[in-house]
């Protein structure tokens, strides 16, 4: 099994290296940091612009391969370069990544758990009311763009606040400014801020996961080994969980990594709508500001996130499927 995991890890690392390098090349050739200075009035002398861009490693007159070498060399030393405003990208990402991770992790963990439970339950009670409700829920949710879903949740939250007459749920930012984040009030306040944006991601993840899990479970339900397990004397629930669900989870493990990428994209929308200063917002702003190093930094972050998720799903795969372990 160690061999299998090592091979997978190596493959994933290669993928992340290629993906991040490719996105660096894309960003370095497609984004135009010079535009930031061209629009100024009076226009700065071109020697000054070149010197500034050189210092930021964003000068389009330098061959892209040379810029990449410098960027990659810095990266190996743990330095992601500087933003277009001459701030370290490391600081920016270090501050923002926890904001996004909180959203994405809660969305992924709660969403996956609920999605698996709902999908499996739906399959077991196929064509009953609960199953039909789940199918309709997935179908409708997956037809609504994350943006619209976010707006709906935000307005629903405001509606609930108005109905209650006090502020139960917050719709802007990650906490009320000026509070100490580590006191009871601060934590409660943060939780009240967290509810709506993570709910959006959870709903998306449940719809996504539930739909596939239901299919995977339906494929397993008619199988011989489940009948054998029942014939051996296992109760229906035990047989379904120990033999049915376990087998049905194997193909789902692969989706886990996909789900992370999906949720990160979803988080860019919720961050924008709910005013969170996370990685998604950072990415969108950086593209608009032609900030090459920041864009490359965010893609590296997403790549590493997917790498970890991919490795976790391989671990789950190895744990669930005994054939991998031999």
């Amino acid at each position: 099994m160690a061999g299998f995991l090592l091979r997978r890890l190596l493959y994933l690392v290669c993928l992340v290296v290629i993906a991040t390098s490719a996105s660096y090349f894309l960003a370095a050739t497609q984004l135009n940091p010079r535009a930031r200075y061209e629009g100024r009035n009076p226009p700065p002398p071109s020697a000054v612009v070149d010197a500034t861009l050189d210092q930021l490693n964003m000068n389009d007159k330098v061959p892209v391969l040379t810029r990449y070498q410098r960027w990659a060399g810095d990266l190996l030393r743990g330095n992601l370069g500087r933003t277009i405003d001459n701030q370290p990208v490391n600081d920016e990402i270090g501050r923002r990544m926890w904001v996004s991770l909180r959203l994405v992790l809660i969305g992924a963990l709660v969403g996956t758990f609920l999605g698996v439970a709902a999908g499996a339950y739906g399959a077991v009670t196929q064509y009953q009311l609960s199953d039909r409700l789940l199918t309709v829920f997935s179908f409708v949710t997956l037809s609504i763009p994350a943006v619209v879903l976010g707006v709906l949740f935000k307005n629903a939250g405001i509606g609930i606040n108005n109905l209650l007459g006090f502020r139960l749920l917050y719709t802007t930012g990650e906490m009320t400014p000026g509070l100490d984040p580590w006191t009871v009030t601060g934590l409660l306040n943060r939780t009240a801020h967290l509810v709506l944006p993570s709910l959006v991601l959870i709903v998306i993840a449940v719809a996504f996961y539930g739909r596939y899990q239901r299919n995977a479970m339906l494929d397993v339900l008619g199988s011989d080994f489940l009948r054998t397990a029942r014939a051996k004397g296992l109760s229906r629930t035990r047989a379904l969980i120990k033999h049915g669900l376990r087998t049905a989870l194997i193909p789902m493990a692969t989706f886990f990594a996909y789900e992370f990428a999906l949720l990160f994209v979803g988080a860019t929308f919720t961050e924008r709508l709910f005013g969170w200063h996370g990685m998604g917002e950072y990415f969108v702003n950086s593209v608009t500001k032609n900030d090459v190093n920041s864009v490359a930094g965010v893609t590296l972050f997403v790549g590493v996130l997917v790498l970890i998720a991919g490795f976790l799903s391989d671990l789950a795969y190895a744990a669930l499927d005994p054939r991998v372990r031999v």
Partner: protein
Amino acid sequence: MANTASTVPGAAGPEEASSRLQLVWRRFLRQRLALFGLAIVVLLFAVAYLSPYISLWQYTQLDFNAFLEPPGGSHWFGTTQNGFDVFALTMRGMQKSLVIGLLGALMATALAATIGAFAGYFGGVVNTALLTVIDLLMVLPAFLIIAILSPSFRGHTWLIFVVLLAAFQWMVTARIVRGMTLSLREREFVQAARFMGVPGWRIIFRHILPNMASLLIIDATINVSSLILAEVGLSFFGFGVQPPDVSLGTLIGDYAGAALTFPWEFYFPAGLLVVLVLAINLVGDGLRDAFDPNTQGRA
């Protein structure tokens, strides 16, 4: 005779082919939800393209006597703060979304079919490249790549945007096509064609792809709705359709903040978008059941 090869599969005879199509069509007609979806899609399509003739306002027109008017009077969906007619804007946006969805879906499915079949049939380098590209795109979501590429099509035609959307939509289907090709490759009628000296590319387009027509039709339908959703997401941030052009995505992006105060600006485009996507997905689901009754109630 090269003709013999194409008649071997049996199902390819003109009579039987049409009867299978009729059978599928009859099964499709039996599904009320799918028919309902189809009716909605056709209706929205017609309204979107006929709206310039029935609406009292054009999407470029400003009404200086009506800023932020709620729906009513000659402005069926109300107006924006600049005096634009929301109905005209929404219809224009829907035209764009529909074109992007349909065009992109055709491209994506054609790409998926070709690449998947070539990878499955020839194996080797094509196969490895395909699988690696698919894995790479799992690490880097298409959303991020298209966003990074967005400055390159800013100021150019939106067709580049459609091509980009399609270029990142084919991978999953290509994988399925590849799997099906692997098994079709070993079937007698393909073998027969191969031993008669029919070149590989012709076998793919004559014998292998027609055998997965059902999968491709279903896939193209589902792609329409996914591409419409992708367009909305990218345009929301300004990475997609560029002003002065209007799409449902740019409208939703512009007026998401007004959802509480001036709901008509947001809920008409957003609501119609959801109705459109739901309807297309219902058609896709219906097609799936019509082509393959065994999967009824699945997915």
